[in-house]
């Protein structure tokens, strides 16, 4: 919850206060500290953060401002809700958050050497986190320009046994959020029985079998899109082939709590939508999408941990439902794991929470000795229709393309059309052509080629547009199609029966 400043306390800061209030952005964090980051393209993130004993890094009141847009709430809270580790010998299973915790005594105090190009952030007198700016992959590319995605990176480190977990969140200048976990430190469990099929003997350590295991990370995401926390909708989309062999999208709006599984062949994805209009396609709705594209591993052990059978859960927000597993340890009056939270409650008009799991199976290798290099796992929360247009283009300098003049065109109906219009671009950008008002049967391809056959006659006013991806130029020209010859299906063959008749009648006389 935001802490509101009263107007009575607004003195010299009134104008700033009023502007911020109007923008509905968190000014202070009720718990934790505020981070604000503005990017060159005008995008901005506002995030409250804190470190707690169980989960360590907890983010709240996460607001995103698109370039030239207004700030809007995305997540009221985001955190890890369990770090589950299952060994292949099945002798030991860890639930690190509830058995040990990631904060408190397990929190690693960071130094400037851990955060060389960033800023250490203090929580209760401890350097608990690092904030730094990163440059990532392309967020778009054109022929003569490209842009890398820039992100605010926030991370903290927890040492649990031999493992060092790096809890990381990236907030990008195009609205993407990327939760990540880095697994580093050292191998934890081994056996002296070298013949067991549950691990590997590594070079230079002939008396030890290091055991394979799976890390399962469960994130808890309380989406509260836009102005209301109770009008969000979650939908699942899939792509299936229809009877004509065409791949079609099918979507299901969830109205009750649900536990869902990935389906790689159907490209399952989950959409969190902000108060979609009735009957609106999910592809047009404003919201966020989670695609499980980094899902090459998946731990299922449903007999002992039934919740592992599922990958994505949607539940009604409930403060009692805090951890993905072993919840009853800390909330004895509550249910124990995330699958139990799914109990057919209606999602309509409720504050929703999404739980997402990612697995990683670790096979020990000699390169893990003595300390392992970080293995990263995570997923993307991507905006859909949050922006008016490509956010990375905002603020880029550009010279609009120049379209050559097009003279009036005259053809006959049935003529074969094949000619090219031209344009130039001072930035040497890739160009794409389009047109409106074309005569039926004639097309303009994206490379500027007119083709086809006019199937109707008349006078047409055609508007040709050329885009360099940033700006558009247009030309208008007249196109006159005269009646001329008909197509071969009508006039072209209508004389044939007459000829045949004349020929047959001549032969009849001869006979």
């Amino acid at each position, binding site marked *: 919850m935001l802490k509101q400043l009263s107007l009575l306390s607004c003195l010299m800061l009134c104008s700033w206060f009023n502007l911020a209030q109007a923008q509905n952005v968190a000014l202070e964090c009720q718990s934790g500290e505020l981070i604000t980051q503005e990017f060159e393209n005008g995008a901005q993130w506002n995030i409250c953060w804190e470190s707690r004993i169980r989960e360590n890094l907890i983010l709240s009141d996460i607001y995103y401002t698109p370039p030239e847009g207004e700030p809007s709430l995305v997540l009221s809270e985001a955190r890890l809700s369990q770090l589950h580790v299952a060994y*292949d*010998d*099945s002798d030991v299973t860890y639930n690190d958050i509830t058995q040990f915790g990631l904060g408190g005594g397990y929190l*690693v105090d960071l130094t400037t*050497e851990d955060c060389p*190009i960033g800023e250490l952030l203090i929580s209760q007198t401890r350097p608990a986190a690092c904030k730094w700016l*990163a*440059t990532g992959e*392309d*967020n*778009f*590319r*054109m022929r003569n320009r*490209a842009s890398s995605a820039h992100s605010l990176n926030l991370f903290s*480190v927890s*040492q649990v046994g031999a493992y060092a977990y*790096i809890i990381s969140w990236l907030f990008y200048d*195009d*609205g993407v959020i990327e939760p990540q976990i*880095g697994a*580093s430190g050292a191998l934890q469990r081994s056996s002296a029985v070298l013949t067991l*099929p*549950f691990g*590997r003997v590594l070079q230079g350590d002939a008396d030890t079998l290091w055991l*394979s295991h799976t890390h399962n990370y469960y994130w808890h995401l309380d989406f509260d899109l836009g102005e209301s926390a109770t009008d969000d909708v979650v939908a699942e989309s899939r*792509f299936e*082939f229809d009877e*004509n*062999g*065409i791949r*079609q999208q099918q979507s299901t709006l969830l109205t009750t709590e649900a536990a869902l599984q990935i389906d*790689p062949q159907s*490209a399952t*994805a989950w959409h969190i939508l902000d108060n979609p209009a009735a009957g609106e396609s999910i*592809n047009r709705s404003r919201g966020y999408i989670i695609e499980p594209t980094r899902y*090459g*591993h998946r*731990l*299922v*052990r449903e007999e002992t941990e039934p919740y592992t059978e599922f990958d994505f859960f949607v539940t009604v927000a409930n403060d009692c439902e805090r951890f993905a597993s072993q919840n009853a340890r800390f909330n004895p009056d509550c249910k124990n794991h995330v699958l139990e939270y799914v109990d057919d409650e209606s999602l309509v008009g409720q504050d929703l929470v999404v739980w997402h799991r990612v697995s990683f199976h670790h*096979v020990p*290798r*000699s*390169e893990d*000795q*003595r*300390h*392992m*290099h970080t293995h990263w796992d995570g997923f993307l929360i991507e905006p859909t*229709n*949050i922006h*008016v*247009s*490509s956010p990375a*283009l905002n603020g880029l300098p550009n010279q609009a393309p120049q379209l050559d003049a097009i003279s009036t065109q005259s053809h006959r109906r049935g003529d074969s059309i094949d000619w090219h219009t031209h344009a130039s671009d001072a930035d040497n950008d*890739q160009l*794409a052509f389009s047109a409106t008002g074309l005569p039926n049967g004639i097309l303009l391809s*994206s*490379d500027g080629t007119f083709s086809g056959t006019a199937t109707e006659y008349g006078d047409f006013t055609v508007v040709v547009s050329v885009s360099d991806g*940033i700006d558009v130029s247009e030309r208008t020209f007249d196109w006159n199609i005269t009646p001329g010859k008909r197509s071969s299906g009508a006039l072209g063959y209508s004389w044939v029966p007459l000829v045949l008749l004349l020929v047959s009648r001549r032969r009849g006389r001869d006979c």
Partner: protein
Amino acid sequence: MLSPHAAAQECTEINHTFASGANWQLCANVNSEHGLSLTDLHYFAPGDSSRQVLEALHPAQIIMMHHGKSNVDMLLGKPGLHKPVALNNKTCEGTLHTISDTHTVCSIVRPLPLLAKYSSRRALQGEAIDVFAVSEHESLIWRSNVRLSEDGRIIPSISLSGLRPSITTSTDGSATLQTSWRMAFALNGDGSNDRVEQFDFPLNRNAGNRRAMEIKAINTESFASVQRDDFRGWRVLDEDGDGYYLDPQNSGYQMVSSTLNWAKFDLAITAYNACEQLADNNQADACDNNLDAFISGESLEGRAPVLWYSQSRIFRPRTEDNPVMSSLHTSFELLPFEWTASSPFEALE
């Protein structure tokens, strides 16, 4: 040292040494068949020697299956199907390597933060070198990138962008993208003694939910698929046990096609054949057209193995893709697996 094979191609040598002493050396080219093409990749771990990992690494096909159409667009194939995009200082923020007026490769060194961390010990900060080229086909433009990390990992990726393809169907303009890479192995300089193994870890519900590691030698050309619940992966290793592991961590989606058989599989393994360059639309004379024909039951014994790995994404048009597509990425990782006896940076910590 680069092999005579690499020297015969018109390519630019890239040789980068990191602060730790680790080094990557390779030859980079841009051609009309693959776009980016890397050959003779050698890795030098600190305290080790420079050893070859791959003979060749390049994109093997990029497919766009526009939903609403029954055919697919293949972006790699005959000369002219795609064109290289000449890079400049606006599109290459690193070092520009010019092979010809239109054929350019970019290399750029990037930080790899938090390469390792243990308790209160300072985090190990690392680096990687990206080598990339850019190609275009009609309105689509893509960057083919290979990231070579200081600790020996190889991370190929393809990022597809450009102006949105013209939409002429009634399916909202969505499409399925599949990218494929070809990896010709030559571990320690000789691929003929390399072999391929498949690792599985199936759950045994009758044995206390234990997962015994099962390693199967792959001795003949074949297709394979990701098995997520069994944590399937593949290793290529030589007679000394030195190897690299292909972990399909980033394979969440699987291509589904009613017309392309090979594309339904995540992995294909073939015996090295120089004319087999593309997963489909293969152009070499007197050579088969695609993986369905390449895989003919040949033995891999005594032959250098070639791995063909494919990944799938969905293009879902949104306002963020108007007018320029937000880049759609695929990437995967080849991980050193018994390549060195321990972490190559142990002495540096």
